[in-house]
């Protein structure tokens, strides 16, 4: 009985220590902020439904295609997708210069997600400035797959 009690107490203390430690670690290291773009591969996005309207305005003025990126904080494949695929220098270059980028948080912008038939992250929807869907890319694709698409969509919109 004594040993069990002791073991239980040790375990309880360990659990509390773990809970406290991971909590504070997350708060100090992994708070996601808009300023650093830490959760979107370091790329600047317009945010949420408001960002989408704003995006359409800019897209129409500058005749740029829109790329909508659906992500979620708990989506571990998004994290890799952001750094590897969106963060790929060639892809990133085209996206930042020739696109209007809008990010949708699946947890918050559920209505938009439903409207565009997006049910899981990561998910990209490419549109022309009028909002016609040109291309959909579901899942964490590799940069080699995304690069021709971002090029084609850009050419299509420019050609119009």
């Amino acid at each position, binding site marked *: 009985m004594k040993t069990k009690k002791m073991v239980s107490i040790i375990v309880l203390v360990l659990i509390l220590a*773990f809970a406290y430690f991971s909590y504070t670690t997350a708060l100090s290291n992994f708070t996601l902020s808009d300023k650093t773009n830490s959760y979107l591969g370091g790329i600047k996005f317009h945010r949420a439904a408001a960002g989408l309207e704003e995006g359409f305005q800019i897209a129409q003025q500058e005749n740029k295609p829109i790329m909508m990126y659906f992500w*979620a904080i708990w989506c571990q494949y998004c994290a890799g997708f952001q750094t590897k695929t969106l963060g790929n220098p060639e892809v990133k270059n085209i996206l930042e210069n020739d696109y209007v980028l809008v990010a949708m948080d699946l947890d918050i912008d559920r209505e938009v997600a439903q409207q565009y038939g997006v049910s899981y992250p990561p998910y990209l929807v490419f549109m022309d400035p009028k909002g016609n869907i040109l291309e959909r890319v579901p899942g964490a694709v590799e940069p080699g797959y995304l690069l021709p698409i971002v090029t084609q969509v850009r050419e299509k919109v420019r050609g119009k």
Partner: protein
Amino acid sequence: MITIGDSLLYATLVLSVIALIGLLLKDKKNNENLNKLVTPAIILGAGLLASAYILLTYYFVTGNFAYDYVYQYSSRDLPLIYKISGTWAGQPGTYLLWVLVIYLSAAWLAWTTKHSTGLARKTQIITLLTGIYLIILTLIQTPFRLIIERPEVVDMIARGELTAGFVPADGNGLNALLVNFWMIVHPPLMFIGYATMTIPFAAAIVYLLTKEDGWEELGRQWARFTWLFLGMGIAVGGVWAYLVLGWGGFWAWDPVETASFIPWLTLTGFLHAAALHRKDKKTFSIAAPILAAVSFILVLYAAIVVRSGLFNSVHAFGDTSTGTLLIVSILITSIVSLVLGMRRYLEEPDKVEEDRGFWNKTNIFYVTMLLFVILAFISFWGITFPAFIQLTQGLKVGVASDTKNFFNIWSYPFTILLLLALGFCLNYNEKKKEEQKKTLFIIIGLTIITMLFRTGNFYVLDHSSPFWVREPPLYKLIGNISVVSLFPAMIYATWATIQRLLDYLRIKSLRPRIKGIGIAIVHFGVVFILLGTVISSNFTQSIDVGSIPLASKGEKVDIGNGYDIKIINFSTRSLAEAAPAPGIRISEIYKNPADYINNDVKVSGRIVDFVNVQTPPSNTTYMKIDDGTGNLWVATQAQEPLNVQNGLEITANGFMMSNFKSNSTGTTYDLIIFTTPDAITEAATSGNYNVQSVQLEVYKDNSMIGSGTAEYLDSKTGSGTFPLVDSSITGTDVYVIFQGLSGGSVPLTLKIIPGVNFAWFGIVLFAFGIILIMAVRSKS
């Protein structure tokens, strides 16, 4: 409006209350008539719920879109099986399924015991209370709500835009991700698991309350059943993620899959506690019932995670309104369990026992249970505190630089400890204890040494991942442990299991022998699952194939790293029965051309040939389409050459001309339809669910390593990828994701995933072993 379905639920509610009163008043006199009613009332209630479920299924099969739930999760063109599985595609239906299974369990309990013992009667009372609570939840979020009761539809009716008897012509359709075999079986397994957790919980509460004897047999048998169903539900969810999401992995620490995994862990702890508690009532007299209660509470928690907006995940297939009531139920059950547990603890007389030291079976079992609790807590905390922070501080936080890292680093050391405990416990022998301790210490030593091995990139955390550098020091420290350190403990556990199996095989009487074999098989399962997980997550090779042009069909295309891919065939089909294509059969036109020339004609078919020519100031595209009865040219002018390819199915509407001589192509067309790009629609010949399949062969160094079909499902409710998975006997999968045809080429990603089949094999062992254990009724 109360629909037939809802009235069935209300009737069950009334019956349950009658049965409940009957059970509560059992000891009082003068209510024999009421007593006689109890068992039939419960069985009838279960029957009514079953009819409600059948009724719902009937609505789905017949496409009764007057019901909102049917409208949301079904559509006319779905194959029958998906119309049936649509009943459990959303929350209202799963509530009904959940409550139905609870009542079936209650009916079984009533039928087999007739409430003759105090334990049975009291267990039934708690089961019924749970059932009633869930019926109320089901009624709040009822699957039998009519579409005209939707607020926006009510508004539209009020504005006169819709009639009061509005029924949509077709449903919204099932999410493309759910159109899949594994999704047919995943929710029922899960919810049967959830529901059958009720009886072990009820029995445990009764035991805590009254020390009623015999609870552990009742609870244990049901707990095994729950363990099987919940476990298989989780596993099938993993298979689905692997085969459908195209993530190339089966476990992603997604909040919902994690949430279901937590009660499964504590339930595993309970089964271990109950094994000793059964032999000696004093052992784990509090731990065992508390673990059963905690498992039930965690099931409720999992239900909240699925249903509340706080924890979003791939499971977010619907909205919620019952989250608060679930939270209330968690609070109630937690407080009750805690208070009862505390009371029992304080009542327990301090046993004056001889101190047998730390190294005895009970203590090691206790440590094992604690390890399950710790693992459960790690998972619980990892999904909970980010939601808590978001709720209280409005901040979004990650648990680690990469979410999975958090779960992996913290779970890893405890998994090793669990394997060590397994090795020590399963083969425990009081007489050989000293010797066994020595072996254990050697293994622990080996584990510590192997932790320090520097092994390429075979560490707890992937050092090549961009997230690695951003992890805090402690996470890096654990992440730096070599995964080789898992092997001494794994071999030790395997060896112990083999030893134990040999012991069991020597047992003369059949029943304990079968049961022993079952126990050994389950523990082999653990080893296989860990092996498969570790190998597949560390050694998966991913090759970005890029796009292979469809034109290279039949040729091997070098994709680097010594791999080649050959496209054998490409085809499209509709999931539903093919609806007749719009327009006129081409053969009809050729029979009586005069009827169609100089008239508007609509035809549908597949493009078999096309020419793009420049006809300044624009471009003209000539497409030869074939509908199976004949072929015909269609031409259209546009600013840009049309982006078409052979194989594309189109419907074109335009003006038919005869003997048209084209200057640009130099051809004279007997019959041709002139149309505009707007009047051409793609794939209008098929229904809402279109499947593109590409048949492939994969080669490594010129020898074929895999072949099969990768598919892409497109629908108005989203799209899904169904990768090619070709397994080999060595446990390695060739895995090819196809992202849907794009501009005439086939985008592919190739993954070589080793060891993953060990995990599937381990899961089969789990199921097989527990079924053997369940098959043998042991007498206490």
